[in-house]
């Protein structure tokens, strides 16, 4: 099945796939998994800072979406809908986890230090402090984990994933003003934690 023609927008392609999946086409749902698992996994990983939790939680999000697909009426895009499921499940999980083994830095991508883009960006972001990337990565994780779950969610979606304010407000079901205000306070808090890298 061709999921996306040349003129079709991603949202239109999603509608077609959702309609097919609702009629029982499991391969159509698989295509939605392929399309959204990297972004959802990324969001959940940056919220939990743990690969194993991110994997299991992303599986659970798709399982829940699969079970609830018949209730999806298309009032929002599939992307917003599944992101809202993912965010709610992650926030609930984080409440339960209650700081259990908060973050694991040992299982992050080991090739990150050799990633040219990462090295260039680290250099560009911080030309005076070309310190060990491991140290920077550790500090970034610590800074992220110091934020409240709600603040970490907006930083993850806006700063790391590049989702616009309006979309985040739909996903989190809060006003755009709340999104902006959470970002403002989160940035201020992160500034304190990353002071040594931004001087």
């Amino acid at each position: 099945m061709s999921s996306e023609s040349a003129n079709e927008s991603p949202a239109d392609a999603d509608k077609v796939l959702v309609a097919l999946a609702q009629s029982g086409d499991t391969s159509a749902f698989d295509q939605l998994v392929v399309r959204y698992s990297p972004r959802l996994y990324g969001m959940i990983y940056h919220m939990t800072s743990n690969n194993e939790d991110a994997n299991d939680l992303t599986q659970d999000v798709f399982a829940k979406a699969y079970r609830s697909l018949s209730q999806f009426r298309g009032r929002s895009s599939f992307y917003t809908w599944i992101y809202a499921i993912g965010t709610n499940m992650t926030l609930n999980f984080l409440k339960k986890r209650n700081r259990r083994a908060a973050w694991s830095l040992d299982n992050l991508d080991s090739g990150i230090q050799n990633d040219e883009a990462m090295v260039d960006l680290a250099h560009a972001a911080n030309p005076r402090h070309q310190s060990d990337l491991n140290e920077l990565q550790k500090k970034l994780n610590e800074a992220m984990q110091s934020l409240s779950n709600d603040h970490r969610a907006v930083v993850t979606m806006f700063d790391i994933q590049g989702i616009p304010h309006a979309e985040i407000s739909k996903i989190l079901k809060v006003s755009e003003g709340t999104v902006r205000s959470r970002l403002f306070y989160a940035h201020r808090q992160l500034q304190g934690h990353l002071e040594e890298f931004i001087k």
Partner: protein
Amino acid sequence: MNEPEKQVQKLIRLKRFEEPRDGYFVDFLEEFRSRRNEGETSKGFLNSRVSGGVDNRKWFIGAGIAYAALLVVVLMWPNGPEAKQDSSRQPVIFEPKQPIRNSLTPPKVPISIPRP
């Protein structure tokens, strides 16, 4: 947005490069498919892993309370379980000290019955 805030954003954006290993999402889809085929999408991976210990503890506490309540009921039951089995007991006969007032005695105040 001030300069330090921009720098914070640049640093945080570096986290975009933290990605899982190559081929991870292929395996992810396979895992999802096999769970769906086995009908396991109704079970949560995380709920069982994260709250499993808490749930077990709840079960133990609940079972303990239920057992204790049952024990109290058995002990507090009038005369205990042998009450039904004691056939030597005679039935209790109620003998009133005063004569029971006849409920059919007409009231002292006459009742007027409206005629149709």
